[in-house]
């Protein structure tokens, strides 16, 4: 039981990635598909923060913290932090594409979109 629980954070990251992919593959609506992509992306945050975590350590905010107190890794947090915000604008691009596709084809179902010229 114990090693399984110790592995759980990484397991959840893998789970979110695969579940999100399942949603993308079986999606019948472009907006649903885009949201599933955001689930896939959130798995990377869980993985990175799990890698940087250190048992019993404090967050990397050094206010009233004695010197040499262990803190969790600030590098992975910095990586996640910017990406969380940038992700939302990337989602906006995808949503804009979905809106235009819906205008042109009259449907948001990816299985009914046909290749089109121009």
């Amino acid at each position: 039981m114990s090693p399984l629980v110790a592995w759980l954070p990484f397991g959840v990251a893998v789970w979110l990635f695969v579940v999100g992919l399942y949603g993308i593959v079986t999606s019948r609506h472009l907006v649903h598909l885009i949201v599933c992509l955001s689930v896939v992306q959130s798995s990377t945050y869980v993985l990175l923060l799990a890698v940087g975590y250190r048992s019993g350590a404090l967050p990397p905010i050094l206010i009233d913290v004695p010197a040499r107190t262990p803190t969790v890794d600030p590098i992975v947090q910095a990586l996640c932090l910017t990406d969380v915000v940038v992700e939302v604008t990337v989602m906006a691009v995808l949503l804009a594409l979905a809106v235009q596709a819906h205008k042109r084809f009259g449907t948001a179902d990816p299985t009914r979109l046909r290749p089109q010229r121009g």
Partner: protein
Amino acid sequence: MTPRQRLLVFLAGAAGLAALLAWGVAGLPGFGDHRSAYGQLVTRSSVPLRNATDVVTVVNLDVRGLDTIGEEFILFCSVTAAAVLLRRQARERVGAARDEFPGRRAPGRDDAVLVLGTAMGALVVCFGLYVVGHGQLTPGGGFQGGGILAAGVALLYLASGVRTLERMAPEWLLEVGEAVGAGAFVLIGLASLAAGAAFLQDLLPLGSSGTITAGGTLGLINAAIGLEVAAGISLVVSLFLVQLARIEEADRP
């Protein structure tokens, strides 16, 4: 390909992918055992070298500042791409802003909603400015504060409708804000170069730890990023609003 076949192909692929990911993850150091020399070095030096207590901000804006400029320009490019995709297309025209559409009646606007929503929007904007301003001291900074500021703008729209939003935060203003924010970060870096130091090197007085001037240029960079993120996200939201409320098919000539 039928949905069933597609699902079968996916299941086979996903099983393989999950196995590969599990294999890769099994090779990581155990959860909670992380020791990174880099991370510890940055953590130990951020107060002595920069007087800044939020190590994450130091990493983002100083130690890995160039990376963050890259991230920031991903945001800039995404907003630009969304703007291009959401502008008026051929055979469309920009009509008057409408709050409701045939067959969908909007609920009447309530004074209580307007007053409470505007008051809360103002509070959220103040909180966003606080988070941007104290990024080098406590959790927060330009990215988070910018998101909160954009939430304030969104609240303003929810409380008062699309016409008020267009008057208070017009598109040109958001575009200028985004461009100035993105440019200011690069200019701060170039200013260090012009002064004969390394790109983004901190040349301002470092203030004293725990005060708002701590970290020298970190505060300025946070302000630039906050402006860009707030304007960028608000711009995207207002572009979707224009797309919804104003853009309609033109009558055939």
